[in-house]
């Protein structure tokens, strides 16, 4: 009944990638990229989160349904932030 067993070296590889990415995000934050800083920090965080979801949480081997659920959760967060910020951004017009 055992599902897909992820070889250990994959876990170690993912772990080291995450540590490296953490270092990168800290380093990049000390470089002045103007508004890009936040964008880069968030992209790196999303990449790290995707790695954790795919390999540590076995989403890669799980069913399509899990991906739909996760996608819905993230999309709803985006809806919440986007429509609210829509109000804040357009107040000055």
């Amino acid at each position, binding site marked *: 009944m055992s599902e897909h067993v992820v070889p*250990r070296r994959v876990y170690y590889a993912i772990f080291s990638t995450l*540590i490296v990415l953490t270092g990168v995000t*800290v380093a990049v*934050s000390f470089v002045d990229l103007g508004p890009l*800083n936040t964008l880069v920090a968030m992209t790196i965080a999303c990449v790290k989160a995707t790695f*954790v979801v795919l*390999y540590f949480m076995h989403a890669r081997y799980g069913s399509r349904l899990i991906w739909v659920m*996760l996608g819905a*959760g993230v999309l709803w967060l985006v809806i919440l932030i986007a429509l609210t*910020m829509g109000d804040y951004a357009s107040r000055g017009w």
Partner: protein
Amino acid sequence: MSEAVSRVAHHFDDAAQQKDAATLGMWVFLVTEILFFGGLFLAYVVYRTSFPEAWVEASHELDVTLGGINTAVLILSSLTMALAVQAAQLGRRKGLIVFLALTILLGGTFLGIKAVEYHHKVVEHHVPGASFQFHGANARAVQIFFSIYFAMTGMHALHMVIGVGLLLNLMRQGLAGRFTPAWYTPVEMVGLYWHFVDIVWIFLFPLLYLVGRHG
């Protein structure tokens, strides 16, 4: 290996259906957690766009090294958690106990470092409310930053404490030999929860600690 009795509840047809149901249920719960923390991220986005300078000033009050160490500690605990789940999957009871212990230890370390940071904030009067003091002109906006900082990291720490409690419970069950390769669902479910809490911190760290560091 002891008889691989798979404990199937009466209302399920077979163990696979039960495991699928448990996994789907856990993921749906994690979606509610995404929306729960999402509210805090909304407050963060709204107030950062309203007070950009104050955000930079306030973020400089946080200790990047402690934050960075904590991030590494949490990522390491995710690794040990994943290895614990794998050990349970392969029936290596000793490995499961060791990795669970390591994850609990790392969780404790994270909470310890967090306690140090909170103490530092109390000493510096950065806790919002009556005791809040901040030189500089942006005191009101900086106080909002710290309101959001304590709400986010406090809620995250609360989830860590719950996670450590769940892990201790897993240790007790693991020592009693309840997990077999045919039935180790609780270990995997706590694993999913733990990885989620780690992902929340992966977003909290840059958003709170790394704002305009180049200034």
